[in-house]
């Protein structure tokens, strides 16, 4: 049986890079193509990197030319502080639409699509249940751009799954990620000497460790699972405890009313950027039920508190030695290793 041929979108992101690294170790994966506008940030051995955006014509040509059978769509942006609302819509909604259109072409070789979404899709409100299961939907309409875009993406994905019953479609909804590499507004807030909070609220939060993120994507890819899965470490813990595990001090400087107005000077002064979806989370918290993925056979290595602890350990290390990355993508060097006849491959 020939091995898997995999397309990874968002190779330049933490997710895409780490997932490609994991795939490279798998002998059943024959070929990996990675797509992004930014160069990969991790060292890759045999992944082919294509610098390209997510326009339909390019995606269509790549899918057709490489005859991929699996697409890992890790490119969705869930951190709204990284780009403007318009860009976010372009990348998430239009990019996914193009990708699905390319995968749905008449003679398409694609048989499995994995999409990395976020538990942001459930929102955070005072009317929420303590635990969201995958089949439950959010209580109120989406309030922020990133939530709206994720809802649209999931809508496209549902339609695609219905129209293409021969393709397994896996949707993973990740809780807030913490770990060694990834930078999110939460990890930035936890790196400050005083961590902001909303006065009078101490919400229960969940986290997933980044190794578990990569392992879960690997797991669903290998198991060819289809359906929707929440991915989050076991348990929940209050924000105050998260801050305490990180050895920081909680500063409930945000007032319970007009919270967004009070948060905006903080982001303008570049102290800490708290987007509206994070303010909702810091007020009401959120819990998602991870048992469906566990029933399918996935084993987490970290609980929510364990993810926080692992982040705290890395932060302590980084304050001592700095967090400079040693790897930098050099196009010519990488091409040499992959394609030059001078390189001996399969040294048996």
């Amino acid at each position, binding site marked *: 049986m020939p091995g898997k041929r995999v397309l990874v979108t968002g190779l330049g992101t933490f997710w895409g890079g780490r997932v490609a690294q994991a795939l490279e170790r798998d002998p059943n994966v024959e070929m990996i193509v990675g797509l992004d506008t930014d160069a990969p940030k991790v060292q890759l051995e045999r992944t082919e990197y294509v610098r390209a955006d997510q326009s339909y014509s390019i995606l269509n040509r790549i899918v057709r030319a490489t005859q991929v059978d699996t697409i890992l769509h890790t490119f969705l942006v869930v951190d709204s502080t990284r780009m403007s609302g318009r860009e976010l819509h372009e990348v998430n909604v239009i990019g996914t639409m193009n990708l699905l259109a390319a995968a749905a072409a008449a003679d398409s070789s694609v048989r499995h699509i994995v999409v990395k979404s976020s538990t942001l899709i459930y929102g955070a409100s005072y009317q929420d*249940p303590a635990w969201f299961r995958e089949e439950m939907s959010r209580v109120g309409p989406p309030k922020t751009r990133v939530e709206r875009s994720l809802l649209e993406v999931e809508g496209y994905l549902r339609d695609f799954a219905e129209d293409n019953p021969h393709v397994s479609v896996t949707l993973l909804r990740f809780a807030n990620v913490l770990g060694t590499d990834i930078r999110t507004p939460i990890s930035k807030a936890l790196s400050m000497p005083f961590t902001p909070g909303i006065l009078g*609220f101490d919400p229960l939060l969940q986290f997933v460790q980044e190794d578990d993120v990569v392992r879960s994507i690997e797991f669903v890819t290998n198991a060819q699972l289809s359906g929707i899965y929440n991915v989050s470490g076991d348990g929940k*813990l209050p924000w105050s*405890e998260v801050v305490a595990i990180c050895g920081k001090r909680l500063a409930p400087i945000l007032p319970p009313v007009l919270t967004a107005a009070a948060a905006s000077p903080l982001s303008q002064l570049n102290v800490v950027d708290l987007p509206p979806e994070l303010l909702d989370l810091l007020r009401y918290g959120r819990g998602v039920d991870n048992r469906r993925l566990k029933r399918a056979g996935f084993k987490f290595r970290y609980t929510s508190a*364990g993810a926080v602890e692992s982040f705290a350990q890395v932060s302590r290390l980084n304050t001592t030695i700095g967090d400079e990355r040693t790897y930098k993508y050099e196009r010519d060097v990488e091409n040499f290793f992959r394609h030059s006849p001078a390189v001996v491959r399969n040294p048996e």
Partner: protein
Amino acid sequence: MARLEDEPLDDPRLGDVDEWGRSERIRELARRLYDPMYRQWFRAEWEGLEKIPTEGGALLVANHAAAIPSDAPAIMHGIETELHRPVYGLADHLFKSLPVVGTMWARAGGVAAHPENAYRLLREQQQLVLVFPEGGKGPGKTYAERYRLRRFGRGGFVEIAMRAGVPIVPIAVVGAEESMPILFKIPAVSRLLGLPYFPITANQLLFGPLGGLLYFPAKFKLKVLDPVSFDVAPDQERYSKSRIMDEAEAIRVQLQETLFDMLRARRSIWFG
């Protein structure tokens, strides 16, 4: 990092706040602070406490009263100190939106009254859960309407008990109505503040606006009725709506009659 497959994961927690936001340490502190109120102020007296299951899930159902309900803490305190098992009190989601109060309420054992929450507590965790089927309409009664049960919602509490496969244990409470009676309500203010009701209580008139938080020392009597079990299979998608309404109405009638019996026997509001 080598790890055996089924070894429990490291869970480096620092606090004891559970998945519902409840902290046994804070609950313990709340019990210590509330105990004098319970014993000396309300002089709470139970009848039939042995009918509350010492293990397994059960849905406790009671009548609800007083502008700031005084019955929930009394029921939770009594059962927790006597039976040494936690009681989770379901209440309106609105609590969760209030700063400080919402957090303290959750730490002290309050849970938002979402059917999913009730199911998980009762079915999966086999806990005791307290619910007031009258909802906000119970405490929102004026003094003139005391001890007359309002509608029991839409019977959702019966459906949850059926789905969770647990009995319902009704509890009749006398005394709470007189601890903070509402003389009249100001609808314009409650609309403005987004509250279910804005009461003017006898306590406010006697002790001033802040003293309005002080309860009158009414004598509390709590009577546990026989548990009601349903001979239906748990975890069904749907249950007969008419059966649900019948059961809900039967429990309501029984609770109402018990309250009238207790009032017939009561000689004094303050001494029982």
